[in-house]
């Protein structure tokens, strides 16, 4: 559905200093999947999205949506898009803004008010309908941005930092919305700093750093993977003193929490079994980082080394 083939994007400033935002990036996003895009600040995520929407042109390489140049595809079909900064004229009223975007999205006039009401309800904006955009809080503005992206049943949806500014309740609802948007013929691309978010909603996640694709993580396949040597958090309620005897390398964090480093899963299991035998009450044991987070750390570390 979406393909980047050997894409370079270089910016040249007035002083002729060249910034390489993306270098030799190749990527395929399949129809029907939710694809995540992760990377530290300046990794090239926003540039990649601007290239995908045709707002920027590649210095080298090709970007295609459904086999078409991005602007050709978008001007014929449109995409559901939420930008990192929600840029809507501040003087517009919420309902007017949605009506305008719905017209431009091609919602037939007869369905216009119904479609606007539907997204207003879905995103909980009923009480803000008559407010001007400048009167909205950060979270409500973000929800308005999301609402305008969902006005039409688009086949391609691009969400840049969609949960930025949302409270935990709406972050959870956002996951439900993405789940509701999943369809065999729809492709959803989500760029986010929030790895936990991506681990929950995405099928695959591309990790970018220094403008290069470091790796693609199949989140579904690795969701329950155990990374050898990854740190684990052990929380005990009784018998705190015995943990150090069993795990000499453990770092006490206070409140019965300990971080275990460099242990294999087998040794951790055996150690915990012995602790229980001694009457220690184990409250929780979990990996400090998710598999995706672990992969991200490795990939970004590698990127830093390559970039240096």
């Amino acid at each position, binding site marked *: 559905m979406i393909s980047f083939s050997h894409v370079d994007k270089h910016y040249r400033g007035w002083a002729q200093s060249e910034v390489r935002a993306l270098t030799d990036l190749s990527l395929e996003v399949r129809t*029907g*999947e939710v694809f995540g895009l992760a990377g530290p600040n300046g990794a090239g995520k926003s540039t990649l999205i*601007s290239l995908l*929407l*045709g*707002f*920027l*042109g590649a210095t080298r390489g090709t970007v295609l949506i459904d086999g078409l140049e991005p602007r050709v595809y*978008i*001007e*014929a*079909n*449109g*995409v*559901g*898009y939420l*930008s990192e*900064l929600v*840029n*809507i*004229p501040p003087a517009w009223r919420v309902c*007017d803004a949605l009506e*305008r*975007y719905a*017209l*431009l*999205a*091609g*919602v*037939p*006039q007869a369905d216009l008010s119904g479609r606007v009401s539907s997204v207003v309800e879905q995103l909980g904006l009923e009480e803000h309908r008559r407010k001007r955009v400048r009167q909205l809080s950060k979270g409500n503005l973000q929800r308005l*941005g999301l609402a*305008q*992206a969902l006005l039409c*049943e688009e*086949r391609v949806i*691009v969400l840049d930092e969609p949960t930025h500014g949302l409270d935990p309740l709406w972050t959870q609802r956002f996951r439900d919305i993405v*789940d*509701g948007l*999943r*369809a*065999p*013929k*729809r492709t959803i691309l989500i760029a986010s700093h929030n790895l936990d978010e991506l681990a929950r909603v995405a*099928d*695959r996640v591309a990790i970018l750093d220094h403008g290069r694709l470091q790796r693609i993580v*199949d989140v*579904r*396949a690795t969701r329950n993977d155990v990374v050898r040597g990854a740190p684990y958090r052990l929380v005990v309620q009784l018998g705190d003193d015995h943990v150090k005897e069993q795990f000499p390398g453990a770092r006490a964090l206070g409140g019965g929490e300990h971080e275990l480093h460099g242990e294999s899963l087998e040794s951790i299991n055996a150690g915990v079994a012995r602790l229980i035998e001694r009457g220690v009450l184990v409250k929780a044991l979990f990996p400090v980082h998710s598999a995706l987070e672990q992969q991200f750390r490795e990939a970004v570390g590698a990127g830093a080394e390559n970039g240096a």
Partner: protein
Amino acid sequence: MSIPVHEALPARRHRGLVGLYGLWQFRDYLMERGAATLIVLGLFSYLSVGEKLSELHYRAEHATAAQIAQAGGAEAWHTAQLQALTSNFLASFLGVVVFVGAVFATQGIVANDRKTGFYRFLFAKPVSPTRYYGQAFVIHWAAFTALVSAMALVYGALVQPILSVPLLMAVAVMFLMYAGIEFLASSMARWDWLSMVAVAVTATYLWGRFGTSPSPVARLVYLLPPLHRTAEVYSAVAQGDALPWHLLAWFGGYGLVCVVAALFVLRYRRLAII
């Protein structure tokens, strides 16, 4: 990897309803630009005409019987005085109306959306920037002409009728030239109204200085509109003479070329570049 099967997506239904969106563009013009244009030009015309009208009333009260008889009666004397006032007003004020109107109508028409990032949501929809901004330009042009018609009607009700086809033709064509230049500048850079003012000043100076020079280099002034001759158009309207069509064609053609160039820029220049 398993993906829940939801209802099949409908086939793509429509492109963006840009034509209908024109009503919003018209509303935006009236609220954001038309109102400001009306206030500035209304104040300016009040200051220009108000004092002269008072003066006219004073002169009417103090006119001698001989003066009135020479004009062919009190009514004729008054009409002649109003005619002179209106002619002077149009000759001096029409240029300001068109210039200010064009600056207000096209200032930031493209550049503001680029600068603020408003283009991002607009052009993620199935809408071409060329169509969207081209339509906005035409709507602003038509709305400005309608605004001038309304102002002319008000002037007609208070002073003397001035609304005429030559007046509207002159306003529309001169607007096309100034606004076309600004539209082209706006499609390329941030400082559109400053660029338009710079072109106006430069063109007036260079045409005045080198317009009649035999030097081949001086022929480069033909790249600029002959703004040193705009007074000919406004005087013709003010005096009720035939419009200088060759000059209007030159001005209008120049504006049209700028508009086409702007649409070309919008077609090929990436929106995120400013």
